[in-house]
């Protein structure tokens, strides 16, 4: 039965749109499905995951405390390689965040209604990933107690930051991105928190009521609300493109071979969406299975995401090839050398890991059977994220470790603190995500209802259903 329903949802028919909500769900059963995780007794599996995530968070806290105490020497940095895992992790986490904004803003503007079942969880992922990302530039500055110098704050030294530096643009871009994503997420949550308020009692009713701001579904409110939501989507779209563009400027505006390339902005944005969608697939497969969301998060959603991964993965593969072509075509010996060294030098293992995970493996998504197999989706998505972490590592470390002067060449090796900080950031991410899936609506309830046939005010006028 389940397979026939799944197939019906995957079919492409000219005369009829595929349903986005399966089964015989009604308005109120959709509310019930989404409210279940909040109302059920806490599952043991949740506690086990939460304790694991909390341990990870503890590792992060310990690693950062040790770093602050001893200084950045506890990382494996050396005279050549001054940026390594810290900035790799930063770009990795920011990139993951981008899929959430793509789903919530860009697909919204393109009226891609299938986004409604997955946008809430993807937006939450964005915010938590950006929190993880913000930690790394914050702690890598060395003298963390003067990290506020990043901001243009009037001070007794009458000193101001350098507004010509892409590193400062980054401060503005990522903090704006975090703020706007959080506001966008909260605005989307207001009606659904009101739903939770109306279903709960006691302390919970008070807390949900506080954050629901007294929402009462008034259509005079919906009118302003929908317009505000549309504008936020329209603002977030150029914002998300600008954020990873500016992150890529951190490299592209330098004159280092391997970094100094005009292809970086679109290449970084495509890579960010690529890795982010992989993370969304991983998270949604687990949430869907644990909270029985099969009727809301359907196979069609996963297939669509797999197609986006295939597209962006191919763009990334094209960019890798183009980097090599330009290195050769430029005739610049340093540029040529750094690319040959990437593929054959001491970091060739990292380079070929990246190529395998990002270029080769996602091509399996051309096969529909693989695109619609949850195990295959899950495993390939994990590979994509491994590959995208290595992409940033390759770009940063291989370009730095060999400079114009061979006597100063060096090899970077991570220390235990490098590794524990990175693992710890996953602890932070999953702690936040687990709290989110336990206490907040992981599917946008009001929005899913709008894509159901019941939402159409002319549903009963014309039973044939012209659309």
């Amino acid at each position, binding site marked *: 039965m389940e397979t026939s329903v799944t197939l019906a949802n995957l079919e492409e028919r000219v005369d009829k749109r595929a349903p986005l909500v399966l089964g015989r769900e*009604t*308005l*109120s059963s959709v*509310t019930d499905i989404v409210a279940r995780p909040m109302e059920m007794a806490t599952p043991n599996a949740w506690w086990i995951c939460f304790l694991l995530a909390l341990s990870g968070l503890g590792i992060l806290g310990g690693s950062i405390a040790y770093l602050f105490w001893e200084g950045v020497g506890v990382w494996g940095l050396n005279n050549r390689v001054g940026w390594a895992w810290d900035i790799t992790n930063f770009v990795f986490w920011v990139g993951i965040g981008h899929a959430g904004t793509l789903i919530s803003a860009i697909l919204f503007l393109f009226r891609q209604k299938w986004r409604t079942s997955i946008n809430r969880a993807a937006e939450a992922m964005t915010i938590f990933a950006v929190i993880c990302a913000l930690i790394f530039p914050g702690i890598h500055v060395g003298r963390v107690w003067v990290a506020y110098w990043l901001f*243009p704050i009037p001070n007794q030294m*009458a*000193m*101001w930051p*350098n*507004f*010509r530096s892409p590193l400062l*643009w980054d401060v*503005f*871009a990522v903090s*704006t991105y975090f*703020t*706007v994503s959080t*506001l*966008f997420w909260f605005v989307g949550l207001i*009606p659904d928190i*009101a*739903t939770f*308020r*109306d279903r709960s009692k006691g302390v919970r009713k008070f807390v949900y*009521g*506080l954050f629901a*701001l*007294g*929402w*009462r*579904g*008034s*259509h*005079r*409110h*919906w*009118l*302003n*609300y*929908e*317009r*505000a939501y549309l*504008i*936020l989507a329209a*603002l977030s779209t*150029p*914002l998300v493109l*600008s954020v990873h563009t*500016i992150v890529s400027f951190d490299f592209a505006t330098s004159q280092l071979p391997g970094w100094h390339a005009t292809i970086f902005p679109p290449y970084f944005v495509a890579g960010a969406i690529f890795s982010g969608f992989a993370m969304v697939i991983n998270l949604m497969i687990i949430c869907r299975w644990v909270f029985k969301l099969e009727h809301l998060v359907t196979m069609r959603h996963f297939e669509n995401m797999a197609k986006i991964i295939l597209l962006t993965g191919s763009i990334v593969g094209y960019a890798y090839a183009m980097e090599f072509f330009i290195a050769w075509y430029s005739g610049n010996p340093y540029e040529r050398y750094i690319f040959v060294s990437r593929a054959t030098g001491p970091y060739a293992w990292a380079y070929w890991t990246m190529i395998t995970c990002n270029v080769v493996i996602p091509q399996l998504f051309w096969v529909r059977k693989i695109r619609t197999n949850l195990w295959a989706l899950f495993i390939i998505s994990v590979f994509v994220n491994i590959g995208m972490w290595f992409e940033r590592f390759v770009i940063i470390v291989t370009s730095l470790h060999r400079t114009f002067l061979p006597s100063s060449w060096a090899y970077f090796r991570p220390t235990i603190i490098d590794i524990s900080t990175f693992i710890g950031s996953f602890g932070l991410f999953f702690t936040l995500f687990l709290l989110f899936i336990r206490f907040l609506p992981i599917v946008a309830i*009001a*929005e899913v*209802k*709008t894509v159901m046939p*019941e*939402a*159409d*005010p002319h*549903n*009963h*006028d014309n039973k044939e259903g012209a659309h």
Partner: protein
Amino acid sequence: MSQKQDLYGVLAEFSSASEIYHACEKVRDKGFTHWDAHTPFPVHGLEKAMGLKPSKIPWIVLALGLSGATGGMTLQWWINTQAYPLVISGKPYFSWQAFVPVTFELGVLLGAFGAVFGMLFLNRLPMWYHSLFRSQRFERVTDDKFFISIEARDPKFDATATSKMLTELGATHVELVEQ
């Protein structure tokens, strides 16, 4: 007549989007002004059935977004030419091209503030107490029920006649709500 002063209005429950859509058209045509529809999700086109004007949000966003961008460029001009002039890479003090990213980000940031806080301001939210929350049935407005509320301060309001009208429009339940 003290009853009239304590009365917030009348609340009518409907069970589908199409029913409330047609009921709203009738309430609009009867000339009521202080009334509202309450739905679990934005019903497409209901603002037409209610005769509402388009939202003013875009103007707020435009004003704040432009001030964000202007403020961002002005800040960078002032810092680089007045407060802390410093030659960097032999470029002019005011090389506006380098200041575009921060200008853009601040424009987006303030525009987003305009959208969110403008929406809350126009909707008079947060408002944690509202008379309609007195009704037990109204809790389902965030689930699967649709409501029309007509306020007692509306000049055309009459507790008995208005309730009767809403029942005739297909309301499954009509109740009076106190202040």
